[in-house]
């Protein structure tokens, strides 16, 4: 873990300020940067705060009371959401968890294999393979999704869980990150020592290299989890049976129906609020032992 974690920024205030008695405020806090960042944080939190508050309002309150005033209808909204089409909302949440969880897990495995191979071996075609894989990042999703749909239709696989799961397993960005983490975290002489001891390549990978790559692979997993959870285009093209919808597609169809019936607005809002909780919770929990910087492929040893 520590070998990969990027060092924390020095905590600026406090230590020197306390020692020198009470210096003027301006010297202890850099006012402009702090204020800029706080304004930025307010901007990003504003819509989230609104959706939290709006989800507590009954349909009547939503249009009549000041928008940042909490309402009294949260329990009713929740009950309505549960009742909507026999609780299909929770089905969508479960589907999203399945697509994102299983998809990200498989994606992480594939990325780990590929990243390890690209980082630790010298072989013919290595750079070509890496570049071709990376080119996948640049492909617009639509040029993939439409023919993917048509091809999967030939295999009779559209409108199935697999049609959403399979195309998202290979993540070029995941392979790229895994390669960086592998070359930074796994020393070549450790691998060589394993070979001297007569261990097979597979054994060296699983027993020696994989544990060292874990912190980086957590990042790959999270990245892919978010990417799949947030994906809309692919399921929108692939699926027609709403029992298989992920939450993004479910909320979209709910909004589409609700456009003409404002009574459904409260359902959409409550649904949106509940939909953002899992990912926010995931990030808050993981924040504690994981650095955001790893997402940009930054590694310091």
């Amino acid at each position, binding site marked *: 873990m520590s070998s990969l974690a990027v060092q924390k920024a020095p905590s600026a205030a406090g230590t020197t300020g306390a020692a020198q008695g009470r210096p003027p405020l301006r010297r202890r806090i*850099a006012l402009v940067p702090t204020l800029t960042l706080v304004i930025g944080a307010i901007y990003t939190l504003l819509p*989230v705060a609104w959706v939290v508050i709006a989800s507590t309002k009954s349909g009547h309150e939503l249009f009549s009371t000041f928008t940042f005033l909490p309402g009294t209808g949260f329990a009713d909204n929740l009950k309505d959401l549960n009742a909507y089409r026999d609780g299909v909302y929770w089905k969508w949440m479960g589907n999203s968890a399945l697509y994102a969880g299983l998809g990200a897990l498989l994606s992480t495995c594939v990325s780990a294999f590929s990243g390890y191979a690209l980082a630790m*071996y010298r072989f013919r075609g290595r750079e070509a393979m890496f570049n071709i894989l990376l080119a996948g990042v640049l492909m617009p999703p639509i040029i993939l999704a439409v023919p993917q749909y048509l091809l999967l239709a030939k295999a009779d696989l559209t409108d199935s869980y697999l049609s959403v799961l399979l195309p998202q397993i290979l993540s070029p960005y995941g392979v790229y990150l895994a390669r960086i983490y592998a070359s930074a975290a796994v020393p070549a002489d450790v691998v060589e020592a394993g070979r001297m001891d007569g261990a097979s*390549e597979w054994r060296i990978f699983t027993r020696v290299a994989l544990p060292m790559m874990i912190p980086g692979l957590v990042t790959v997993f999270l990245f892919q989890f978010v990417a799949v959870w947030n994906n809309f285009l692919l399921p929108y093209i692939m699926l027609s049976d709403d029992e298989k919808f992920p939450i993004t597609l479910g909320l979209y169809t709910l909004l589409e129906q609700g456009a003409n019936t404002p009574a459904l607005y409260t359902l959409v809002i409550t649904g949106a609020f509940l939909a953002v909780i899992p990912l926010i919770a995931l990030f808050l929990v993981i924040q504690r032992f994981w650095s955001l910087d790893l997402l940009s492929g930054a590694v310091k040893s």
Partner: protein
Amino acid sequence: MTTARRRSYGVKGAPYAFLLPATILFALFFALPIGYAVYLSFRKVHVSGLGLGSGARKEVWAGLENYTGALTDSELAHGALRVLGYGCIVVPVMLGLALLFALMLDSDKVRFTPFTRLAIFLPYAIPGVVAALMWGFLYLPDVSPFYYVLEKLHMPQPDLLDGGPLYLAMSNIAVWGGTGFNMIVIYTSLRSIPAEVYEAAKLDGATPLQIALKIKIPMVAPSLVLTFFFSIIATLQVFNEPMTLKPLTNSLPLTWSPLMNVYQDAFRKGDIYQAAAEAVIIAVATLVLSFGFLRAANRRQKQEAAR
């Protein structure tokens, strides 16, 4: 001897074995679909007679017909123009804010950074559909706090979901969603600059602003180029946000962005051939634009270095 040979054989084959899953997936879900899209873009359905009966509809070669069709399609051209306008707002504003926040995070004596950093990054975890949905409601006069304030102040209340303001409304969603991730990328590269680099400047009495402009920004230029590159690609692919805002307004056509146009042609009109040609054109245009930018940026950097 034999074991040694076998072992070296094992080492040689190992990387290919490790790369096998990725290769298979790449072939099935990247290479094959792209090839198929290109193939379809040169095909069309030929209908003979009234189009009835089993042999009446036949797929035949179309030459460049689909491409000329796509290039003269005014809907697609309008969509492209709309997205270019939208991109001209989104990319500079988003990356400008990302750079500003990253520099602020990196400055001395700044407070509350763990909180503000996480808060600004938070939208990354929120699906584009949900983001567009939340902002969409904030743009609706009936429920929005902004309109409430404007009304109390007796200020004009523009319709955010129509005409020119629609671009701003749509751009705002993308800026809100993308700033945090780009901020993290830039901030990470800021922190990899060794502290000694600033020390001399500080001793010479340079202000933080001077240090930011003269030292920090030039040193993170490569990561700025990279974020710019990926932002151009992402912006030209916009789909989720306009799709989600669509039910909330009548002034958003179903072909607002080129991707929406492809979807319409492929699945509403059922013309997958024309749609395939459009998808290929969009892909090529995206690659030309983004790599053109990358080349221009590289050339500039070389010139700077040579000076």
